[in-house]
């Protein structure tokens, strides 16, 4: 906990002058805002731990204001607002599983699965004969996300996307 916000340590460098006081220069990500800041502490200083846990959940539905998630084992349900869901909204399809980070049992952020399979709802028809996909073209997916896909991929097809790089991986054959 730093300045009343839960934070994760990204990098921690131990700095110690030969005969002097040891410091830790720490890069910290604010889990609420996602911003990374640098702070310096005296070695041995302690901060309040944040009650933050990652829980695997199933995405249920969007009621317009909140998105709803469920822990499959316990059927416990959580609702998360747009701020907590953030960019994950582009990758959430009903029934998909994802990771919800809880802070004091309230959703703080949502991380989609590394790979998701989504249907293309809109894309230009590809040029016939071109199967190599040299340049690619933009395609809109059912969740609203836009990714570049090879020219041979068509509307209605299901594709696999890497959510970390936001890149097309392959077509998914039924």
């Amino acid at each position, binding site marked *: 906990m730093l300045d009343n916000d839960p934070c994760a340590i990204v990098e921690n460098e*131990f700095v110690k002058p030969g005969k002097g006081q040891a*410091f830790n220069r720490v890069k910290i990500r604010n889990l609420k805002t996602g911003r990374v800041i640098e702070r310096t502490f005296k070695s041995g200083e302690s901060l309040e731990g944040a009650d933050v846990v990652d829980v695997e959940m199933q995405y249920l539905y969007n009621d317009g204001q909140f998105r709803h998630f469920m822990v499959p084992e316990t059927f416990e349900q959580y609702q998360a607002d747009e701020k907590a869901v953030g960019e994950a909204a582009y990758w959430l399809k009903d029934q998909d599983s994802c990771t919800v980070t809880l802070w004091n049992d309230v959703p703080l952020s949502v991380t989609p699965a590394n790979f998701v399979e989504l249907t293309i709802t809109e894309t230009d028809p590809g040029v016939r004969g071109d199967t190599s996909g040299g340049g690619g073209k933009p395609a809109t997916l059912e969740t609203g996300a836009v990714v570049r896909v090879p020219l041979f991929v068509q509307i209605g097809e299901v594709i696999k996307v890497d959510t970390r790089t936001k890149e097309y991986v392959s077509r998914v054959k039924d």
Partner: protein
Amino acid sequence: MLESWRPLCSTEQLRARAKLYQAIRLFFSKRGVLEVETPLLSHGIGTDPQLDFFTTAYYSAPRRQTLFLQTSPEFAMKRLVAASSGSIFQICKAFRNGESGRFHNPEFTLLEWYRVGFTLSELMDEIADLIVFLFQDQPISGNPIQRYRYQDIFACHTGLNALEFSYQDYCACARAQQLPDAPRLCGHEHRLWLDLLFSQLVQPHLGNNALCLVFGYPACQSSLARKNQYDSRITDRVEVFINGVELGNGYYELTDVHEQQQRFEQEIMLRQENQQTAPVLDQRFLSALASGLPDCAGMAIGLDRLLMLLTNSKHINDVLAFPIANA
């Protein structure tokens, strides 16, 4: 079977270390400096509040004694010098509890040497000779050696006077240099401010592909160095840097047993205030000082860091076969 039985560093690293030790031994034997060995375990330990030591239990039935793993071989080596050993050097392990990071492993290797009759400036010349010798195939040995007075290089990078503490000026510098935590961390303690500002703002600029020697440290910064005979605000202490990495520390050694005892007592009080483990004073070292330590200058260099520089390694773990996590 654990996969982590394997050494973390390459075989070339093992060779580089062996070559370094050979070169050091050759350098000192040519100069008539005697290689010695002193115990890693001892009954007394340094009082420096900045160093945490390892405590061990020694069973010699029916007694159980507390022994310490040395944080440096300084006291034992000075006992040898006091007993007329002449100039000596040693390559040995030293232990500092809680120190772990890119440049720290709690168990590490030191080169420490004492030169009887040397002044600080003669010691600095020898450090330069040693580094040039060890880096003979690398650009570092060809570039001019930088020598700075602490107060000059500190003023150059911070605009502050290192010898006179002004809380306002120091805070203003911290604000301007994006160190907002500094006032909270350092309060009104000059010593802490110097540690923080020097390591954050000065050190990264020292010894760009060259050897850099910084000398004349403010008096609040050293427990075993002698005060400068012309300016009591500074001590005869030198620090060695290459590419912003601190390699070692040297003193024109304090030989006055009364002043030494006073500094120990001050440090023990500081440790009590900080609720640190109580040290056991090394009475044999104090007795050696009382019997008369010849005028001498001494230097310690961290060999793991030196190897990092020699082999362009980013992390101390890259030059250690078995860093603490795999030891």
